[in-house]
């Protein structure tokens, strides 16, 4: 008669004594990531306070590379020291359409053949006449992931077993100058540049991320 009450009561105890997530400081601030990428020197950009609150990251790096008039690319690393309800990484797939960008194509690509299991997302975006190529991935707690689903699973597992949920969202945006190029093979050059930046950024983010022994 009291069994459902007992089980639900245990659930109440379980969530009230839930393992507290540790806020884990990065080894180095995200801004310590080298400014030199693909032969360009980056200039720091500030994310407005309101946007920072919405995004919920605890540390970030956002840089623009190349001439002011036509930047060659921008990079962003958003670091979350712990992820809880209302303060977790939002997939760019959810945020970009809200910002007026339309997703034209979306796929997963390998950055370097020596790490065939490390996939990152490649997305082509359009906003009116502007087109952009975006590479993004999730990095932290010893792995790189492109899949929003596996990221959720790993978040749950590591939260329950280790009390750790720190993670970074890494994103590279390159403009696609010729609108007719979007989504076609003629983006190859921009893809090569994106991969070069991504490989370099991947190593830099590992250097800044907290230690993780699996």
């Amino acid at each position: 008669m009291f069994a459902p009450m007992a089980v639900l009561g245990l659930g109440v105890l379980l969530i009230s004594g839930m393992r507290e997530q540790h806020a884990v400081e990065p080894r180095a601030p995200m801004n310590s990531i080298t400014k030199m990428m693909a032969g360009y020197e980056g200039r720091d950009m500030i994310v407005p306070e309101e946007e920072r609150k919405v995004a919920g990251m605890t540390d970030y790096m956002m840089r623009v590379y190349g001439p002011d008039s036509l930047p060659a690319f921008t990079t962003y690393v958003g670091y979350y020291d712990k992820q809880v309800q209302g303060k977790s990484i939002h997939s760019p797939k959810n945020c970009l359409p809200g910002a007026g960008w339309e997703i034209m194509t979306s796929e997963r690509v390998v950055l370097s053949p020596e790490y065939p299991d490390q996939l990152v997302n490649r997305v082509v975006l359009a906003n009116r006449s502007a087109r952009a190529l975006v590479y993004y991935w999730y990095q932290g707690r010893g792995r790189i992931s492109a899949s929003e689903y596996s990221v959720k699973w790993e978040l749950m597992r590591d939260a329950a077993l280790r009390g750790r949920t720190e993670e970074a969202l890494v994103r590279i945006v390159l403009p696609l100058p010729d609108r007719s190029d979007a989504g076609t093979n003629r983006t190859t050059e921009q893809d090569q540049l994106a991969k070069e930046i991504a490989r370099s950024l991947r190593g830099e983010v590992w250097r800044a991320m907290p230690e993780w022994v699996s």
Partner: protein
Amino acid sequence: MTIPATSPQQTSSSALDELGRDLRRGLESVRALAPAELAAHVLTAVMFVLLFAKPMRLLADAWWNDPNSGHGLLLAPLSLWFAYKSGVVEGARPQRALGLAIIIAAVLFRYASDLAAELFVMRGSMVMALGGLVVWHAGFRQLLHWWLPFTLVSLSIPIPEVILNTVALPLQFTASKIGAALLEWRKIPVLMNGNVIRIPGQELFVAEACSGLRSLTALLSLGVLLGAMFLQKWPTRLLLVLIAIPIAIVINGVRVFLTGFLVLFVSPEMGEGFMHTSEGMLMFGAAFFFTAIVAWVLSKGEGLVLRSTAKAGVA
């Protein structure tokens, strides 16, 4: 389950009388309970509220503030009403072990989803626990008997954004293609690039709102509801829900075409703001209408099949 139809002769006052009678009967059966049993029920309810207070609050917040989830405000009270109207199935027997297993699973999901900051699972665990309590008290047959309220409540839980966007992209492309094909049919030069349609002097974006998904969950709920009310067989009910999906997509393709047409021949302002939203609501109304027509046609077809089967049986 068939929803007991209210006969035309019944007035609203007699429905209220019936509700009053049932409430009195319910109170009497509560008074007849042994104190220990009553305490068990009350404590279970208290624990349920304590455990699921967070998902309940977050769900109510989504219904109230998120335009994609607003239909939950209608579905939740409807579900309660349908559960009450369909009552307890004959021969309902408690299934303690199964019920408890479902409740335990729901509690684990509730715990894990909080750890992973995963809203959908957290909200889903609440419906799962309710299902477990039904099975514990009245068995799996009762849960099946209440399939409509449970389905409607489940459809009122907002789909996770990750899944929504995975489904949205192909839907967007399909709506764009239909819109572009219709524009070409009207001899308007169209150039499609992914999800962007270019017509002379204008560029149309088939935004998420136009993908049909905003109205898709509401339309699916409507399909379930119409199927339960007017159809008798599971395959036809399922068919109705499945047909609601292409209806939403085609209607949104037509919306893209109309937007392009109006932007080109009337005013560029027709593609944004109030006009665009009104056009969207009109299109949802059309989708609603076509789904109702399909339900009506299916019910007629079902009636014919059932009659001919009955005749064959008699012969």
